[in-house]
């Protein structure tokens, strides 16, 4: 039985009414997430182009749900359970021991996507089933950079595991280049990145941990209610304007990332979603490092980081 067949079988066995899993996207070789019922189980598939994190989708579903989760997806699910956003007993997690996913944008530079029918991993190679014949490329050429530093390729939480457990990496060598820069160089680097941001808020919208209904960076009336006076409405707190400029954008991203201290699952959805290709994971990684090295917090602890900080404060 291959990986996809195993996934289908376990989803079937779970008996869950609803299934969150990957299905093939029309017209493209990649997969997208879908909410399915047992009768659609044959649509379920999985490949190194099953990149998205299903955790956010789970939050809008009630009742028993079976979900396919890679290592980073499971990190997010566990975090949401920790934060009371998901109930463990409602989930049946089909964990996938993950070797990393393909960077779709990198792949599109190497091969014409419209020619690719199917993608699978074989050893260290990616096998591309093309419209005509087959092609092989080294996985290392197209793997998402984020996956190279993955600490938890094997799900930290699951009901059934598919594949052999794997070791992750624990170092932060990906940050060396930025850390070696002088403060001024680093500022320049980040401003040149943030300058591109169009504030579509995709990074926030896809992030499984950005679930606040009202976000502090929205230029909205946070205090509005039917009881608000005209004056209240006129003087609402506004942290950021809607204007797009490098410094406002920087504040948006820094505020967003700071709220992920000790929480980020490392799935990389923010970076994948960004149409302007901002290196958002680098911010999260730096924070992860600080949380680990300065505050001695381990993401695997049962108690959330912010709660622990409160306790330390006492």
């Amino acid at each position, binding site marked *: 039985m291959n990986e996809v067949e195993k996934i289908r079988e376990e989803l079937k066995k779970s008996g869950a009414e609803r299934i969150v899993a990957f299905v093939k996207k029309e017209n493209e070789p990649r997969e*997208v997430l879908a909410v399915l019922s047992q009768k659609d189980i044959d649509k379920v598939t999985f490949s190194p182009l099953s990149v998205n994190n299903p955790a956010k989708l789970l939050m809008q579903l009630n009742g028993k749900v079976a979900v396919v989760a890679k290592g980073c997806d499971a990190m997010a699910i566990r975090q949401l359970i920790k934060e009371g956003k998901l109930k463990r007993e409602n989930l049946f997690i089909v964990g996938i021991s993950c070797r990393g996913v393909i960077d779709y944008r990198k792949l599109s530079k190497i091969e014409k996507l419209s020619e690719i029918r199917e993608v699978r991993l074989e050893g260290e190679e990616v096998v591309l089933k093309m419209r005509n014949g087959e092609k092989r490329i080294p996985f290392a050429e197209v793997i998402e950079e984020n996956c190279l530093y993955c600490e938890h390729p094997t799900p930290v939480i699951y009901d059934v595991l598919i594949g052999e457990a794997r070791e992750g990496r624990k170092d932060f060598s990906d940050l060396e280049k930025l850390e070696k820069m002088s403060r001024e160089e680093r500022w320049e680097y980040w401003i040149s990145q943030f300058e591109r941001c169009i504030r579509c808020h*995709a990074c926030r919208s896809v992030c499984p941990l950005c679930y606040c209904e009202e976000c502090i960076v929205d230029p909205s009336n946070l205090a509005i209610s*039917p009881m608000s006076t005209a004056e209240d409405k006129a003087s609402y707190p506004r942290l950021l304007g809607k204007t797009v400029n490098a410094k406002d954008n920087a504040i948006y991203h820094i505020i967003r990332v700071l709220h992920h201290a000790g929480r980020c699952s490392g799935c990389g959805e923010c970076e994948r979603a960004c149409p302007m290709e901002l290196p958002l994971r680098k911010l999260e990684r730096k924070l992860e490092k600080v949380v680990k090295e300065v505050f001695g917090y381990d993401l695997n602890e049962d108690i959330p980081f912010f709660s622990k900080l409160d306790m330390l404060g006492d």
Partner: protein
Amino acid sequence: MRTSHSSQSLICWVIKMIYEGDFLKDAISNLLARGYKVFAPVKLGDFHLFREVKSAEEADFGYILPRNSAKIAVFPENEVLIKYSSWIDEIPFEETRIAIVGIKACDARAIKLLDKHFLEGFVDPYYKSRREKLLTVAITCEEPGINCFCQSFGINPRKPEADVVVSRIGGKTFVNAYSDAGKDFLSEFNLRNEGEEEARLRQNFERETLEMRKIEIDVEKLKKSFESSYWKEVAVNCKSCGVCTYLCPTCFCFDIYDEGEKKGVRIRAWDSCQFPLHTLESSSHNPRAEKWQRLRNRFYDKFYYALRKGDYYCVGCGRCIDFCPAGIDIVSVISGVR
């Protein structure tokens, strides 16, 4: 198809010439020297973005489509409407002439659609001040992107509706003018007439239909499906971000607000119908509080409500499909309405 722009702009005279050299870059240099504000694709890493350029070297033309649309030249992400202190100090209008170099057929059609919105009926003076000074220099498409479907809207990717059209065919650069402004602009360059053989080459290139996706739009079905549970299914994975609307060349929604109390600026900035706050009323009622209502609105806006203006508000560039983080696909969604 409803749209009929394409043939209108081709009437009267058309000059068809050949340029020896890098026309697009030389065009940028020429425009900059004459004081134009020039928008052109800049290569950043592996992708292109339309940006204002200060020299021809900044531009790069090796793309199927730049990631953002060319609408930023006439409808910028944010602009100052009024500068105020105790009273209005200044109403800044665009004084400089503007050019877009490297626009493709889809984005060029989109500007015509934006014209309908901003210039017919109520005339938006800020948009008008840019639009009437705009020169478009387009490039034809050699091949389509994976999610291109412009031909569904009667757009010919080999014949953009622009002032000047540049085609690179068989190592030769064909330069055609399709308007007075385009003709005037070409008088700045050393061009030679195309030969008979070259004319045939160009005509064949223009006539060739590209193999691309097709969208099936059934307006009657859309009319009947407003209350369908289909929209909830389609939106289940929608993240309510603004990627689709911000990359869309025809989306025109904006918000206006003041920055500064006693002294400041009134600003217009892009807004997205996908954001929950877009329709939040001061009574705290939100007519589109749920994400499926917002997503449905986007599709109805483009393919039904927009018909009041006489056209679908989609040009088939495929950016919203390529960059939707949830993989929502406008072609599948509209073709599959039930």
